[in-house]
């Protein structure tokens, strides 16, 4: 059974169709990469799925629940979590506290006014464990403004994992990351929980073909191709439109 089902999703700004009748399904544990040239509608699609953008048409299902009209916060509570193309972190709050915030949100204790944040031992333990798994233990007490960009991207992933997602939408996790720090992100992606369904938008084809079980190719907002990496690599239309006629996937 699918964990995420997108049916005929569309969005237009005036006469410009940004997403056009996009449909796909995602099974638990599946890794789906969405690729396409700049302006193909990838980020818009992720924003629609996450609830940050209202769709003009189509439906979105999480397992059996129709979440199309749900606001973003409700989708997050249901396990649909996203990261951003440009890191969106609280620049002056220590990373450990930011992770604790995400866990409090998930546990419903974020509105507690009377208990000291440091008295939540289990929350801090879980936050530290996530940081440790991502190789970020050293950054627990640092603020994002004191960190390298690659580490900030990892913190985004850590925050998403702290929300215990069932579906994780990764919007260009490698964007802006220097080559010297890229391996950190690659390692983190490899270590994502096996049962977690992941949708990744990425321009780094090496990462896409290494990470994805399936690839969805968007062009002008519409689905150009959907298939296994080997099929996409051999698809002449995709090669012509996106990878270039002589492109090496």
């Amino acid at each position, binding site marked *: 059974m699918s964990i995420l089902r997108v049916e005929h999703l569309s969005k237009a700004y005036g006469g410009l169709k940004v997403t056009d009748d996009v449909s796909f399904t995602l099974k638990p544990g599946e890794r789906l990469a969405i690729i396409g040239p700049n302006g193909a509608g990838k980020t818009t699609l992720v924003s629609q799925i*996450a609830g*940050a953008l209202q769709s003009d048409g189509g439906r979105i299902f999480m397992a059996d629940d129709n979440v199309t009209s749900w606001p*973003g*916060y*409700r*989708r*997050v*509570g249901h396990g649909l*979590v*996203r*990261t*951003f193309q440009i890191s*969106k*972190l*609280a*620049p*002056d*709050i*220590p990373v*450990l*506290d*930011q992770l*604790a*915030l*995400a866990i*409090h*949100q*998930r546990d419903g*204790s*974020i*509105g*507690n*006014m*009377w*208990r*000291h*944040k*440091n*008295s*939540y*031992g289990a929350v*801090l333990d879980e*936050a*530290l464990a996530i940081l440790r798994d991502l190789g970020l233990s050293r950054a*627990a*007490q640092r603020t994002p403004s004191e960190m390298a960009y690659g580490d900030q991207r990892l913190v985004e992933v850590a*925050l998403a994992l702290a*929300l215990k997602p069932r579906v994780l939408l990764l919007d260009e996790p490698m964007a802006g990351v220097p080559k010297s720090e890229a391996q950190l992100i690659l390692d983190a992606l490899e270590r994502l929980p096996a049962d977690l369904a992941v949708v990744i938008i990425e321009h780094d084809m090496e990462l896409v073909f290494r990470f994805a079980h399936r690839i969805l190719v968007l062009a002008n907002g519409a689905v150009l191709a959907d298939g296994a990496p080997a099929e996409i690599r051999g698809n002449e239309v995709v090669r012509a439109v996106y990878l270039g006629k002589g492109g090496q996937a």
Partner: protein
Amino acid sequence: MQLSQASSPIGRGSYFPWQWHLAGLVLIVALYWLFPGNLLMLTRIATLAILVMSLDLVTGYAGLPTLGHAAMYGVGAYGAALCAKFLTGDPLAGLLVAAAAGGLLALVAGAFLVRYQGLAFLMLTIAVVQIMQNLASKLSFITGGDDGLSGFTVSPIFGRFEFDMFGVTGYWYSMILLLLSFIVLQRIMSSPFGLCCMGIRENRDRMSANGTRIYPQLLKLYVLAGVFAGLAGGITAQVNQIVGLDSLGFELSAEALVMLVLGGSGNLVGGIVGTALFSGIHHFAATANPFHWLFVIGVLLMVVVFLPKGVIQLVARRLGNNVLAVFGRRA
């Protein structure tokens, strides 16, 4: 001395910085002995410090600059005065009424205001304080209008400590309430809720991506700030036994914001330091030169150029950021 989560390698540490509270108590006693002739000024500093701390919740912790915070303060002052006049002279009952009045206004106004941020929020808060001041002026049969509301008597505290003309009872009353307010607010802002407010200040998109609903959290914070602003107004009314329209004024709101900026926002301590500094300089500069004291305040505000996070930044440099992290924002 382990004071904060930041001083602990794994995020845990003392939850209750009692050393600081004890230091505050010692300071209150010391000020009483050092400045026996300035108790009225110190009382005013204490009540204003509660107002500025409550402003710090909105502006410092949640990042919403306001020029209308005196609306809640003034409503609290009128609430306490009317309680003493028509219901009971018991000061604690008056405080309850003042806090409730401030909280209620914050709930009603905040339900509309916290949907906005930045300049829009700032301008709307000015509108609220102007509306409240005009309302108080029009309702002169209750509020006394321009003449102020007087003629009420506040009973002795616990039936024992009468408010005296030298301001001794008023001093202890306001200072103890300042300390208690600080302890309560410090505890609240060290909770997950306080952290959430700081997260909203730092990056709303991040909080939304976490699944946090911004509006109810901000409204809760605004009501909390209203309760403490009302409390500050209530204490002022009880100690002075007169409430004027200026307690609801834009000027008081602006002064409170200046005090906060001067001391440093986002950690409660800065608000107290800024209030003391502003009021102290106001007092001595106005005595020395009644016509040009504002010049001194103007020059003082230039401190922001060198210390953008307020005077408290100097303390942080001396003692280390971890000390301030006990209370909230690092300087």
